[in-house]
């Protein structure tokens, strides 16, 4: 992208364009088809050849979704859950990252290795005791119960340590100390403004992780009023005679916000993947 040479269309590359175009079409088709089915009656599904153009039932199908699951409640629950978890994880990670990057204290390296090791523990190992713990605390069917597991984010600490040690100059911290700044003041007024881009990266990672996670939310949230989007959507598929138009209408409206956000901020999304996994 940074190259200034204008790329020219070469005839020899036509097979490459065909392959990439095919991959793009297959990537997008389910999104389009989801939209088509969300505007069609369930019967359209049985037509041969298949229906590939939108119909007029966009509103009716969504009305049926609203009659079946508490869609807006679930949407609100999900947004609230994702936002609060993301903010807490950003705070915890940046504070720890700051400490690991700029302070020296005995056992620092050992503690950091411990954090990295916790990444290896697969989430299901503790599933049953975690469920038991949450039920003992009375947090089943609450967003507390659904969210608490996601507060643990070793990758976040790792990313923040990396970013802070690279982009916050030691001299700046020394100067602030000479001026009598407390460590927390340094964090708030010097570190935080510098690490905003890292917040965007980690924020996207955490937000999308919590948005899409299923196993834990499905385990903890059993009461429809506490459903998050994923659990609510899954419950649409639980009867033997599913109305496909309604089902895909629910999926469509739950996916639209994320697709819009993605299309606007796609550069950040894509760089969050490479930064999150390659550092």
């Amino acid at each position, binding site marked *: 992208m940074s190259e200034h040479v204008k790329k020219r269309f070469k005839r020899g590359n036509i097979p490459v364009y065909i392959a990439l175009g095919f991959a793009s079409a297959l*990537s997008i088709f389910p*999104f389009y088809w989801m939209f088509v089915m969300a505007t069609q009656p369930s019967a359209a599904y049985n037509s041969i050849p298949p229906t590939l153009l939108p119909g007029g039932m966009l509103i009716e199908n969504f009305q049926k979704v609203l009659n079946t699951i508490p869609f807006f409640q679930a949407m609100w629950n999900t947004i609230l859950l994702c936002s609060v978890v993301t903010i807490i994880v950003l705070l915890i990670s940046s504070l720890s990252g700051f400490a690991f990057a700029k302070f020296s*204290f005995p056992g620092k390296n050992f503690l950091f290795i411990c954090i990295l090791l916790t990444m290896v523990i697969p989430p299901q190992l503790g599933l049953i005791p975690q469920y038991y713990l949450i039920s003992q605390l009375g947090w089943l069917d609450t967003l507390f119960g659904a969210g608490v597991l996601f507060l*643990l984010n070793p990758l976040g600490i790792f990313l923040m340590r990396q970013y802070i040690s690279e982009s916050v100059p030691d001299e700046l911290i020394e100067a602030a100390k000479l001026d009598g700044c407390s460590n927390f003041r340094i964090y708030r007024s010097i570190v935080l403004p510098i690490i905003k881009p890292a917040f965007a990266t980690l924020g996207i990672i955490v937000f999308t992780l919590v948005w899409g996670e299923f196993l834990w939310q499905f385990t903890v949230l059993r009461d429809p009023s506490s459903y998050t989007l994923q659990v609510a959507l899954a419950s649409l598929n639980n009867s033997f005679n599913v109305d496909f138009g309604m089902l895909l209408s629910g999926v469509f409206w739950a996916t639209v916000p994320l697709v819009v956000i993605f299309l606007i901020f796609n550069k950040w999304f894509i760089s969050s*993947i490479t930064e999150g996994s*390659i550092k």
Partner: protein
Amino acid sequence: MESVEKQQHVSSAKESRLSEKKKDMLSGYLYVAPFFIIFGIIGLYPAVFSIVLAFQEWNGLGEMDFVGLRNFTVVLQDPLFWKSLYNTVIIGLMGTAPQLIVGLILAYFLNMAAVRFTNFFRVTIFMPYITSMVAVALVFGVFFSSNETALANYVIGWFGIDPVSWKTSEWGAKFAISLMVFWRWVGYNTIIYLAGLQSIPKHLYEAATIDGANKVQQFMHITIPLLKPFILLTVFMATVGALQLFAEPTVFLGSSAFTRDEAMTVVMYLYRDAFSLGSFGTASATAILLLIIIVGAAALNTWLTSGAGRRKKGA
């Protein structure tokens, strides 16, 4: 909990006038403390509890009964456990191996200097990753519905294949689930490989061209070896992810998820033991077996991948 610690620090700070160094030390511990406190409660304690539980008989309510290794023998003698492990491995292979290969090819194409519109292709190919697993499973669930008129049946009809009852046949269910895993993750791997390809210095290729190496030789001897860290990363993550498969089959199969065995995975088996059958002991034993399998498979796959790279380099 934090404020208590803070108070302790503050009071101890008053007792002896602290040097700058000591203050930093205290801030350091204070700032890393939240992670360890949370980890202790919802990470370490459940992990230890799980190991204890694997040797008990417990339904989550009454007394625990120590039963030694019986939970493990019960699980290991259960044909359904082996079936679920078999399903997990088959779906894992069918869903991840093509994903990594196709991802590599697409990344190679996107990285070609003369190809235009790469940003458009990159964004569209990555887009499936932002959908949730539940959404993907539901869309593919309709696409691969068991109706004879399912769109998937229409498509295979072009090739003269008879309609398949996707959700209730051994290979139909596995194929549909593998395909949705493949669809969602190809773009993700493409992006990682693309970042890897862009990190390879261009002059290496120029030098190889001068030495008379063709494109295939350049790919095998420059691209693959230098891409190895990225390939190892994706192989590792795909292996771990595949063995933890839960959302896709559960949502795809809907109401019959825990009663049929064509696509039951190990985590679904574990979940069913704990939350449908109330047998927390055998479920915990399964969790530990799964942990051992994941560590073993991840080690084996990373070892195989790095070995393959080494052989190619030497050849």
